[in-house]
């Protein structure tokens, strides 16, 4: 699904990623953990196609397509979805209107006509139900005045609507209380299939109790310094990140 080879990236001329290798296959869940400032969010921004992040070396391939050739919307059309750590507020655009615009943009890019309103409404209702989202919430302006938890839930709602091949959840657990965390994880698990993949980026092991990873990678100073299975997450939880620094 996603192959990253020797990825180097800069932000404002500063090297942040210093040679990342990652191979995520369809059907897999990967977790990327690491202390603050290790480059976790830079990695997700680079995959998303944020132009503030310059890839200086290396490759990112999604389903064999070089992402460097694609702009942010084209990457989305190919199946990339990033659940942002800090989702933006868009006063004046309702959640419904936003998701409708996004879905139809995806369909158009894939040579399909707009989704019929009735089908779209049903999908919106079903997804809202899955994520225990009140329908009133759907006619509010996107993220405007939403609590941190509501914003995150709204990100997962959009993910569920867009059905990406590769979902990257960037610190989705921050700002969520335990009940909301369970709802979000439950939503992600229901959407998981053998045809898609999930990358969970997190500082803490908490979310991984509910979205169980097949592989865990530890990012430190722009490199993956250790990879393992879900036991590695437990180890990090128990021992903290200090011992990792010695590995680097």
């Amino acid at each position, binding site marked *: 699904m996603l192959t990253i080879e020797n990825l180097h990236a800069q932000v404002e001329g500063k090297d942040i990623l210093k040679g990342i290798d990652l191979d995520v296959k369809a059907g897999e869940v990967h977790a990327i953990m690491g202390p603050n400032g290790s480059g976790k969010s830079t990695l997700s921004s680079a995959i*998303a*196609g*944020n*132009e503030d992040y310059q890839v200086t070396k290396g490759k990112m391939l999604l389903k064999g397509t070089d992402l460097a050739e694609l*702009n*942010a*919307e084209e*990457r*989305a*059309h190919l199946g*990339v*979805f*990033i659940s*942002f750590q800090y*989702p*933006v507020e*868009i*006063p*004046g*655009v*309702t959640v*419904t*209107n*936003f998701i*409708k*615009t*996004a879905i*139809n*943009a*995806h369909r158009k*890019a894939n040579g399909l006509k707009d989704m019929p*309103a009735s089908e779209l*409404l049903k999908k*919106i209702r079903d997804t809202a139900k899955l994520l225990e989202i009140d*329908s009133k919430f*759907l*006619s509010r*302006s996107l993220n405007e005045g939403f609590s941190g938890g509501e914003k995150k839930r709204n990100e997962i709602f*959009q993910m569920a609507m*867009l059905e990406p091949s590769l979902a990257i959840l960037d610190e989705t657990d921050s700002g969520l209380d335990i009940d909301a965390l369970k709802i979000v994880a439950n939503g992600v698990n229901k959407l998981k299939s053998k045809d898609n993949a999930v990358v969970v980026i997190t500082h803490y092991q908490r979310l991984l109790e509910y979205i169980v990873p097949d592989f865990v990678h530890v990012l430190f100073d722009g490199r993956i310094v250790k990879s393992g299975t879900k036991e590695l997450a437990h180890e990090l939880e128990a021992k903290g990140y200090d011992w990792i620094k010695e590995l680097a």
Partner: protein
Amino acid sequence: MEFKEKLLSSYLAFEEGLDLSDSVHKTRAKALKIFEEKGFPTKKDEAWKYTSLASLISQDYSLFPKSEATIELKDVRKYFLYDTDTYKVIFIDGVYSPFLSNTTHDGLDVCLMSAALIKPKYRKLINAYFNKMAPQDDSLTALNTSYAKEGAFIYIPKSTVAEKPIEIIHFSSGNENALWLQPRNLIVVDQNAQVQIIERHQSLKEHPVVTNSVSEIYLHKDSFLDYYKLQNDLPSASLIDSTYIHQEKNSHASVHTFSLGGKLIRNNLNYFHKGEHALSTLKGVTILEGKQHVDHSTLVHHAQPNCESHQDYKSIFSNRSEGVFNGKILVDKIAQKTNAFQQNNNILIDDNATVNTKPQLEIFADDVKCSHGCTIGQLNEEVLFYMRSRGIPEKEAKALMTYAFANNVLDSVQLPSLKKRINQQIANKLGVNLGFEL
């Protein structure tokens, strides 16, 4: 012949059939003198620094349409807010259309200025209000006064709520080559009365038309006015609108101005507080393209203590369009505890679009809350990236963001079908497909 000369020399023709000894006509004749002395404003006048009338007044216009134009209901129905359930005062080329109108004298007066100016039963109101608030030294208002004969006359008596909104619509048929119109409206809302009014000017064919409109609005104690100006005319039409609002104690006057189309639009919107606890709301959405020009010139004169004013103007400019916002807030020494807020936000889509924005606060009281803010900017890059990362192409994302920026002003529109319609017009203008809402 210069157009100013034509306006002066045509006055004899205008006077034909009028009672020249009447006090109303004396007011008119006096106003003509003021116009004669002052002439049209030029860019040398501070208030007209960024808006030039030169290209408009270098043309010739007919002042009196030669023949009465008829238009079919089916051709203009789309310009009405509702087919039924509104009072309508409708004019075609400046002439009242009884066929399209729906006036009343049942419990309130929604009728013609021409009738109010001559009928004895309105004499008291005319003597009390006609041309009593409009400044005597404004040349365009004086020009309108000198030719004042037709327009809407609205009187809402004490403790009366106008059950239906009132639509005032001026159509220009295009039968005349070029037309100069000067409607004059007088609106009196008595104590504890309420009214909603929608005003629009609409050309039915591309042809030069200039409307120099003046409205005087008097709000008595505890009254409420909810006024909507819809300016979405053809690119050959220009409008100079001077509106004067007199507010007594506890009155609330709200004016929304939607400037979406036209060649040149100048809105002079003036509020005068004459009693305590008056509340004034001024909101505007302006979306321009091509070489259109819109100038919002507002004045809120806080002349009494404990009053409030809120201004919120949002504008979007594409191509070579130009915008002006000149917002003056005047707080007299006696007007303590004034709350006056002003906000003007602009988005320039293209490099060749321009906006001149100038807040002007003159505060002579020491215990007041006044604030103003203006921004001129492009769209927020972070929001744009967020949208693109969800698969919305850049062009569409920008359109949706611009729509959202403007659409926020609609929250305070109190007529649901008007809100829906303007929402749709804004979306169409910006190329946004709205679809449905839950």
